[in-house]
């Protein structure tokens, strides 16, 4: 399970429960393996927009987060994708966050089996919605808020 740790990852894989179709030069293929990449500097604007909405969702969660932080300040910094999704789903910007995330995937942050890099709505529509949200949770933990959370928790 993805958690914030001391080393930054540049990619991770996610296994889908059902295969999705894609095309390469030899024809039609199927895969269950998604390879997700950290957003490149070219995508810094899209990444910043997504991060902004994610942080806003956390802040909107409630006023007792500071107390909780103090209580946990000696514990190892960790954040589970499920916690992130829970915080995001409670926010009315959830749909926009999903859209921003899908835009990142279509701009080079996802490949299928490491082979197919041209990701379109055709591929994303084949992924089960629950699983896409699971991927989003892991992606946000790994690549969108990891560096910030580390800095915040280090203070």
């Amino acid at each position: 399970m993805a958690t914030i740790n001391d080393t930054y990852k540049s990619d991770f894989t996610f296994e889908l429960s059902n295969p999705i179709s894609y095309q390469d030069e030899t024809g039609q293929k199927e895969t269950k393996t998604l390879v997700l990449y950290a957003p490149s500097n070219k995508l810094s604007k899209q990444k910043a927009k997504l991060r902004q909405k994610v942080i806003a969702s956390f802040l909107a969660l409630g006023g007792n987060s500071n107390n909780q932080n103090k209580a946990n300040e000696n514990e190892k910094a960790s954040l589970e994708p499920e916690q992130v999704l829970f915080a995001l789903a409670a926010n009315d910007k959830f749909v926009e966050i999903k859209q921003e995330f899908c835009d990142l995937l279509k701009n080079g942050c996802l490949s299928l089996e490491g082979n197919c890099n041209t990701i379109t709505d055709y591929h994303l529509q084949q992924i089960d919605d629950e699983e896409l949200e699971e991927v989003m949770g892991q992606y946000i933990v790994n690549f969108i808020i990891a560096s910030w959370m580390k800095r915040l928790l280090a203070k």
Partner: protein
Amino acid sequence: MATLYDPTVVINNRQYYFKPNTFSYIGGLGETSVEALSGGGGTVTTAHSEDVSTKVSHVKGMIDLNRTNIENVEALKNLVGLCVITVHENDFQKVFVHMSMSNDPENSFKVNPELPIEFKGDPVL
């Protein structure tokens, strides 16, 4: 048996939406020539030969004329022999590989504009 009338068409990992009643394909199974041979005395038999030069698949249809489609079509035009087309509906599926856009699409700006696209390539898989 379900009638096929509303296929999903994917070209190089992108789904395309076709104008109604414009999409069709020829599998590229080739033409077979049949010639009568006379044996004399009124006897006749036939000789059959396949014209391999006609074993070319052909996929065509009309898509909407908009900026995205124009840009995508221009990109496809440059992929000579590298286009892959999948046609599927329910449990029916056909895949075309080594396809090239054979026509030079005419962008006609009008009411209900359309962009004709045609591909030719290997016989259907």
